[in-house]
């Protein structure tokens, strides 16, 4: 019999996870992980496989999120319609955006996506008659339990992994990677690089947009600061993509687990450890340290990017050989 593979074991674990971990807190964290798997996979398609760095994933995430919210608040439809429609609206934005920006090579695309992110954040903030601006939009949640959301998130994550894997093995995937490796060579091989970069961006935007809509349904509340956040969404997406491994199928999964954990450690000050130390030792400055550390997570995200790029340029999945070697060597020293 064949040994069950890592991804299969993980899938089985994820399928029964809510049955084992009944506490809402753990279920919440895992829902975040699964959403990040989907966003990370979307980011990975355009940036990891096609080589066009997406710096503003929040533009598509936020558009998906707002589609769901507005369907509910303005049209009194179910916010669940936001999943397909939010995905499609993200594509509708990605298409003309790519058509304009992909004519330029170099860092222009990355910078333009950053601008797109900011433009949408400002629109959502200023257009109060539609979005209620900074006040945000409240959506009635469908379920009280987290479990249904968990399984929708799991389905989205699986769809994104299976979908990206399917695309990457196909003609499109070959074209995306060829464009990443050498755009001139790709053109001379008969590949319409402008068109295929747009295809890749649209697929990415779809996955990220769907996840944005799911976020609205799950959280029941969105505002421009949260869903169009540069650091909590756009930069986080880059980190999820590169920590696990750029241009690998399971990289974003590994990245999502690590980054949600890192984010949570910072948010809670080491799961309350710092606070506890403060209380136990009676050092009042621990409270201050805790406060600064939770606020410094953006900075530490930056440091993490540097560490990963320096030591594991291909991410944890891509550099698995290197990591294994380090452990093997430390276990049995060279004779």
């Amino acid at each position: 019999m064949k040994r069950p593979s890592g991804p299969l074991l993980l899938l089985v674990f994820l399928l029964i996870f809510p049955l084992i971990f009944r506490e809402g807190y753990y279920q919440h964290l895992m829902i975040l992980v699964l959403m990040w798997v989907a966003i990370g996979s979307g980011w990975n398609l355009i940036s990891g496989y096609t080589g066009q760095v997406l710096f503003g994933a929040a533009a598509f995430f936020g558009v998906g999120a707002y589609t769901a919210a507005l369907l509910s608040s303005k049209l009194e439809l179910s916010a669940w319609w936001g999943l397909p429609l939010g995905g499609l609206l993200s594509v509708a934005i990605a298409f003309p955006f790519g058509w304009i920006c992909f004519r330029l090579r170099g860092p222009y695309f990355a910078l333009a996506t950053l601008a797109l992110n900011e433009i949408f954040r400002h629109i959502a903030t200023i257009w109060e008659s539609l979005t209620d601006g900074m006040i945000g939009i409240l959506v009635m949640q469908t379920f009280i339990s987290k479990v249904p959301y968990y399984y929708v998130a799991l389905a989205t994550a699986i769809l994104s992994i299976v979908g990206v894997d399917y695309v990457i093995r196909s003609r499109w995937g070959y074209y995306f990677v060829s464009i990443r490796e050498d755009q001139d060579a790709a053109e001379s091989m008969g590949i319409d690089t402008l068109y295929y970069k747009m295809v890749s961006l649209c697929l990415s935007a779809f996955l990220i947009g769907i996840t944005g809509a799911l976020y609205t349904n799950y959280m029941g509340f969105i505002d421009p600061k949260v869903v169009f956040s540069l650091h909590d969404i756009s930069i986080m997406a880059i980190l999820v993509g590169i920590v696990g491994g750029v241009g690998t199928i399971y990289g974003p999964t590994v990245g999502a687990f690590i980054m949600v954990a890192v984010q949570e450690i910072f948010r809670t000050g080491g799961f309350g450890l710092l606070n506890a130390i403060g209380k136990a030792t009676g050092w009042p400055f621990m409270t201050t340290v805790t406060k600064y550390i939770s606020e410094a997570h953006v900075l530490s995200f930056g440091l993490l990017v540097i560490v990963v790029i320096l030591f594991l340029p291909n991410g944890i999945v891509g550099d698995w050989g290197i990591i294994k070697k380090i452990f093997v060597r430390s276990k049995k020293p060279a004779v």
Partner: protein
Amino acid sequence: MAFFEVRDIVKYFGGLAAVNRVSFEVQEGQIYGLIGPNGSGKTTIFNLINGYFHLNKGQIWFQGEKISGLKTHQICQRGIGRTFQVVKPLKRMTVLDNVIASAFLRHHSRAEAQAWAEATIHFCGLTHFKDKVAKSLPIASRKRLEIARSLATRPKLILLDETAAGLNPHELEEAIALIKKIRDSGITVIIVEHIMKVIMSISDRIVAINHGMVITEGTPTEVASNPEVIKAYFGEDYRA
């Protein structure tokens, strides 16, 4: 009408005319040589045919259709393949994947693309390197990979830019054999080569250029005996 024709093409870089009113015709089934000293504009002519640069003046015709003005990928789709003098392997892909990516132009299913890619790799003598990552190849094999990738698009005309440069005598013989094999398979070849021995021995006709202008055109013997060509290649002293 000729199979392939370059009509009066001009390309300026700033004030400098890198290609200046160049015209030539290539008949189907020929190996056509393009010679000239370093910097005379040979690669630029390929880049113009290929649509990588825009023409300032002139036209390029292929199989009765005007192809100047088309985009690079459209020119490839029309049936003109090329290799790069400075090779451009898709570095982190295997040799097979490099060629499959090209084969997808004419074969949309993965299985067909792979079968055609494998046949092309075999044709180019790269079977041994099939599963190697492209960046790990030695230079002679990288040059072959350029050819394989181009052939995988099933061109009717192929532009080979100094594919014999930097090869040792043995590799050179193999490269010449491969070029002849390509011609024998029914593909017309335009070849840029610095090594006179190569180009003289395999070309049906040759155009010689210098400073972006045509010096002479004709059979290898005609071109080799042209005093301007001798001057451009060996300097004034040689003639005396």
